[in-house]
């Protein structure tokens, strides 16, 4: 039985580790400026934790087999422990765990402690049951007012976010169901929700933030390669949670300008 335990535990360990190392299923290719740092730290964490994982499971399996009760064998070692060992491995573990965390803190700080840069493109992202809407401020650089009373999700677009058409600043606001962003320029997202908590998750951008009713959360990221990137809702929001998705299209700055101009012209 000891040998069977060893074999099974080792097998499970090596098979699991294999799929991590082979990256059979892995994080999607990073497409934002922050991705490289996050992915690098992810790798550091998974190598260190992987070593601990394999070591612990290998030892467990080994001990299960090596110290099995045999008819002719020495009696079990009567030991209540070893205080020195306890202190040593406590300190080492503390250094490993807290060290890892401190290593990642600079990335966290740069992502979350600082506001968006002055020239960032502002996009207001609104989540509601069960769609995402994106609003661009237009040439005047100001977002028009919205009125909760005017919100009508069934009408889509401007009505869905309750745009107050009497506000002059609203005239040039563009509301779309697809998010466009120019490459290599920081995007400042202003995240809102109308009804329940949702979460704006763009896996390729390594970006996630809950959108909370009653709050307007300002965050930023910088796309660095063009392409189409799926947006998923990452906070349970009701029966349509699974189909509350969107698309982020990252294009060149001139394609973005053309697109925005075309949307303005439609208004």
């Amino acid at each position, binding site marked *: 039985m000891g040998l069977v335990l060893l074999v099974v535990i080792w097998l499970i360990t090596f098979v699991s580790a294999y799929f991590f190392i082979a990256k059979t299923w892995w994080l999607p290719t990073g497409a934002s400026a922050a991705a490289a740092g996050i992915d690098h730290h992810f790798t550091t964490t998974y190598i260190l934790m992987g070593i601990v994982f394999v070591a612990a499971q290998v030892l467990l399996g080994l001990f299960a087999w090596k110290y099995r009760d045999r008819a002719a064998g020495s009696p079990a070692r*009567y030991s*209540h422990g070893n205080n020195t060992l306890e202190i040593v491995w406590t300190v080492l573990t503390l250094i490993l765990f807290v060290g890892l965390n401190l290593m990642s803190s600079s990335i966290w700080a740069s992502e979350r402690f600082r506001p968006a840069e002055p020239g960032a493109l502002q996009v207001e992202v609104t989540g509601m049951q069960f769609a995402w809407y994106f609003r661009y401020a237009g040439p005047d650089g100001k977002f028009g*007012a*919205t*009125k*909760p009373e005017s919100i009508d999700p069934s009408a889509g677009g401007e009505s869905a976010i*309750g745009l*107050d058409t009497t506000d002059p600043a609203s005239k040039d606001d563009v509301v779309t169901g697809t998010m466009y962003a120019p490459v290599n320029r920081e995007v400042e997202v202003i995240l*809102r929700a109308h009804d329940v908590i949702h979460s704006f998750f763009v896996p390729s951008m390594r970006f996630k933030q809950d959108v909370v009713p*009653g*709050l*307007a959360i300002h965050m930023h990221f910088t796309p660095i390669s063009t392409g189409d990137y799926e947006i998923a809702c990452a906070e349970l929001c009701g029966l349509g949670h699974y189909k509350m998705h969107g698309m982020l299209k990252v294009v060149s700055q001139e394609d973005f300008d053309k697109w925005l101009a075309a949307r303005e012209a439609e208004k």
Partner: protein
Amino acid sequence: MASYTPTVSLDDPRTSTGGNGHIPPRHHDGDDFGSSFFDVRLRRARLGLVVGLTGIVMIFISFSSAYVVRQGLPTLDPRTDVLFHDWFPVPLPRLLLINTAVLLISSLTMEIARRQAARKAALAQLVSVPGVSMHAKEEVSWLALTVVLGLSFLAGQWMAWRQLAASGFYVASSPSSSFVYLLTGMHGVHLFGGVVALLTAGAASLLRRPADSLAIAVDVTGWYWHFMAFLWVYILCLLEFVH
């Protein structure tokens, strides 16, 4: 039982710390002559009460924390994107001060009842004449007085709620009014539990239950009652001064 015998001796069994076969130290288990089972049971009941009160304290700490957080929380006006504070304290009815006085007096009567019950239990241990219960009527009437005062407090709280409603402050009228009803209501529920405990103790007394069991019940209920009075004063101060 185990299959060993106490007469087996061992050849120098190795141990890691001291304690060579001496009888382990006396632990409080109440079998010394003189110290009674009453002491043990009373101690145990009081320990249980302290533990239970800790659980109740956590409930009110949660409510207090929600209160403080909500007070300081600015609200986003979606029309203007401006943050503003929407906390307007509720003017508390003067009646609450009268209710407080009633509750504090009930704490006094409760304490008298508690000491009476303790004295009776002590007497009962020495005077073992069955059926004799000196001061029985006195003890019951202090308990009864506490019940009456407690119920008066609760009635007064209900009247204070009516007064609030009459001035337009209902449960959902404003964040601060919600908390007024919440905190006073939760306290009232717990105090009512205390009233039920008192009634049970009173019934037990009338049914001539053993004096020591009665003393324990009244003791524990008494401390609970005092705690409820203290909790009420805390809630009143929170509502009145923290805003």
